[in-house]
């Protein structure tokens, strides 16, 4: 049977319990982390990302083994116009796939005469007509400019076919997308 505690012992036990409780409370206080510093860091990251987002009028997706635009010494910036992407597997105009490529080449069905790519020309004609309608409302003139982002390993013949088709659709001036090597 347990021995009854003396009043001194009860007092000492109480003090010990109080100390334990105080220590536990202190630990709890310490563990509630300070959120302000995390908020500061996140705000800085957000501002940086917002600044790097949307500064260019058009986006060029860089995909390994698919579409990697070449590097260049140029310092010129893009302006908004019709966007043609020539990857290793397809040609995309303003986000819409118009031609599928095999071995980085156009099939004879897509380009019956060997140069003019039929689907591409139709799509560019549509876009030109839309642009002319919009420009007439604004009393501006159709500029006939196209922005071409092509993969580094694409043979020149394919780019030439795209250029010739674009010329047939009355686009005469081209800007080639490149990765800037020298910063802005």
């Amino acid at each position: 049977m347990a021995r009854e505690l003396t009043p001194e012992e009860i007092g000492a036990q109480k003090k010990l319990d109080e100390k334990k409780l105080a220590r536990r409370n202190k630990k709890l206080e310490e563990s509630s982390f300070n959120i302000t510093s995390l908020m500061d860091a996140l705000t800085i990251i957000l501002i940086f990302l917002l600044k790097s987002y949307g500064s260019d009028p058009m986006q060029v997706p860089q995909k390994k083994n698919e579409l990697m635009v070449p590097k260049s010494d140029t310092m010129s910036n893009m302006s908004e116009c019709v966007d043609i992407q020539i990857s290793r597997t397809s040609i995309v105009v303003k986000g819409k796939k118009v031609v599928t490529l095999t071995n980085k080449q156009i099939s004879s069905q897509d380009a019956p005469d060997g140069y003019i790519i039929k689907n591409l020309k139709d799509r560019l004609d549509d876009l030109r007509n839309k642009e002319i309608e919009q420009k007439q409302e604004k009393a501006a003139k159709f500029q006939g400019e196209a922005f071409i982002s092509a993969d580094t390993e694409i043979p020149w013949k394919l780019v030439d076919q795209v250029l010739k088709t674009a010329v047939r659709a009355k686009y005469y001036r081209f800007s080639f997308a490149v990765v800037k090597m020298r910063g802005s």
Partner: protein
Amino acid sequence: MAKKTTVEIEMEDINLMPIMNLLCLLIPFLLLSAQFIQIGIILVDTPRKSRNTSKQKDDKKKTMGLVVDITQDGYYISTKAGSACPDRKANGQPCIAVTHSGGKKKYMHENLRKFIYSKFYKPNYKKNSDPDPANRFFVDWGKVTIRPQDMIDYETVIQTLDATRELPPEAKNEIDGVGSTLTCVFKKDSGKKEWALQGACMFPLASLGR
């Protein structure tokens, strides 16, 4: 005497959790869509466009007619007067031949830049430095035609365009008023139709193809 009462205002901490939630959603979205590389452009014309613009040329004036052919062997350079390296051409060799390193063909675009600079730009830039094209010696000053063969890869064409457009480093000391940065920039102000050239350029007005 009026009894003075003190109202204790308890300052509550702002609840940051909704903002934190929003930030945690926004940051991954922006990280995925952000573009960390800087995209630039190289402006080119088709030969048809450049022919149209040079219709108004003064017939009494000289034409340079600078052409760079990119072949599997290297660069062939010519002007209206003929090949820039007739001896090499007579032997069936290009002006600047390709080299082979590690089983890979390498086009010497830096040599092309130096060649065009020393052979065409440096001897003629003073006669063609007038801002008004009508007062220049060559009616087509600043223009170059690049003619790649079908199987040349796109990267080589871009490197060739760079080589004909940008001045080599030695131009800093040899050409007056080019500045220290040696940059050639196409700029288009909003609402304007035409692009304007700024900075120090060699032959920036490139047309591609035959």
